[in-house]
């Protein structure tokens, strides 16, 4: 068994999770799922912060991660409120049908 985990495993895991988040954002068609992919991306980044905090033995990484969490929570609240409004106005939750911001 490996004695200790090298740091780059954590970072690679974070990168893979981020990639999965992007995949979800691009390929999913429901607005709520897209939103969840955004949360996944944010989490991946949080992992990176904490990892580097461990590497540099500096507590500031934890604090950045904390702020990211706070902002993500606020964003989730507002975003879901917006989704509710969109559903009320258009009656659909498919991303491809919400395309009126065009020239």
């Amino acid at each position, binding site marked *: 068994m*490996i*004695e*200790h*985990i*090298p*740091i*780059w*495993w*954590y*970072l*690679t*895991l974070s*990168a*893979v*999770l*981020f*990639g*999965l988040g*992007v*995949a*979800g954002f691009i*390929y*999913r*068609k429901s607005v*709520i*799922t897209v*939103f*969840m*992919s955004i*949360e*996944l991306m944010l*989490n991946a980044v*949080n*992992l990176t912060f904490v990892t580097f*905090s*461990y*590497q540099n*033995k500096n*507590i500031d990484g*934890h*604090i950045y*991660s*904390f*702020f990211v*969490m*706070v902002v993500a*929570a*606020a964003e*989730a*609240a*507002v975003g*879901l409120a917006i*989704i*509710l*409004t969109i*559903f009320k106005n258009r009656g659909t939750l*498919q*991303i*491809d049908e919400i*395309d009126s911001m065009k020239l």
Partner: protein
Amino acid sequence: MDSILFIIAAVAAIGCGLNLVLQKHPISSALSLIGVMSSLALLYLLLGAEFIAMAQMIVYGGAVMVLFIFVIMLLNAGAEKRSDKSLFAQIAGFPLLAVLVVLLAFLIRETPFPSKISQVQFGSWVPGGSAEAIGMQLFSKFLYPFEVVSVLILIAILGAVVLARKEID
């Protein structure tokens, strides 16, 4: 011991992430997201960030995901249907994605980390616990961002209330 925990948490995280992307119904995706967050909390514990791990579980798992599930229930979101719009995304998305992950992995691998601490050990590396250390920094060096974030939350609350209330007829 910690390597086994890492393997378990990592596999769980990636598995739930794949599930999130591949499932058809939003509720399944939401539950997979909860799984991802839990595994990440475990990973934080492995990295000695117990305060962050707890905050993750409480804030994300306990509040944000509950909100998501409530909204899915409220809107009665159904399974997704096929769509043939957004061709560019469907075609170019996968290659770009692959390039992204490969690039990131390459960059990570090529970066010369100081070999002394490229190994992770289980257990807290902050003497006295990370909560105390975070608290000390938060209210001295990061006081201003802390206050600003408080205002941000207030605004988010107001925004959510305004957006989501019923129209008064």
